[in-house]
């Protein structure tokens, strides 16, 4: 029995191990687990069948792209923030320009002066 188990461990896979044990006749002869032929066939079948989860062929990026995208919230899109930035910038600019007082003119020139010039004045 021990010799058969050692051979199993050395062989690696479950299928090879079960086959080896059955072939040697030791599995039926003594001790648990008592595997029937049906159990062994099921085990072998599971080993050979492709996984229902993993793809059987490599997935390419193109195939990934074809997967329909989930619904992304608007606030997570670039165009939403671009639009928001434009609206905010426009509103702020308009508000600043509209609320800014016009350039304050200088005091009027006194009557009788021979010249009156400088900033805010035309000679």
């Amino acid at each position, binding site marked *: 029995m021990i010799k058969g188990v050692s051979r199993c461990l050395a062989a690696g896979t479950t299928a090879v191990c079960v086959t080896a044990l059955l072939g040697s006749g030791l599995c039926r002869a003594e001790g648990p687990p008592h595997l029937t032929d049906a159990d062994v066939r099921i085990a072998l079948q599971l080993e050979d069948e492709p996984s229902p989860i993993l793809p059987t062929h490599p997935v390419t990026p193109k195939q990934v792209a074809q997967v329909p995208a989930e619904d992304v919230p608007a606030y997570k899109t670039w165009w939403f923030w*671009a639009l928001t*930035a434009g609206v905010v910038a426009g509103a*702020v600019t308009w508000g600043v320009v509209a609320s800014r007082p016009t350039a*304050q003119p200088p*005091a009027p020139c006194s009557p*009788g*002066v021979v010249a*009156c*010039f400088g900033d*805010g004045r035309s000679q």
Partner: protein
Amino acid sequence: MTGLRSSIAILLAVAVLAGCEEPVTYGYFRVTATIDPASVDEDLLKKINGCGIVVEGARNDRANIACTRGSVRYNLGKFEYSVTEPQGSLNFKVLLADINGNEIARGESGPVSIVPKVTTAVTVVVRAVPGFDAGADDR
């Protein structure tokens, strides 16, 4: 996304700062220009055909006073100047020239400090330029 949010923040900051711009204030000068009779005699006075004002210092500017030959008096009058510079000083010069553009007389105020929202009175006394030949251009 983060870049866009940062851009919006910068835009808002710039707009707010632009709105906080200080209002314009003016400093005023009222300059009285006279000709020194002890320096400029009647003959020389009659030769004056051009009067100019030059401003130097924190601001450089110039203007003309209407001076026609034979009508210039010792009291040239008053002129006013405005400036938006909040500080510094200005020097006012008055230059008188004959019909050929030769400088006959000049005077300057010396440095006068700019005081925002205040009118500063300045006096300029014009004196003959040494070496000018009053009889050289007697047309």
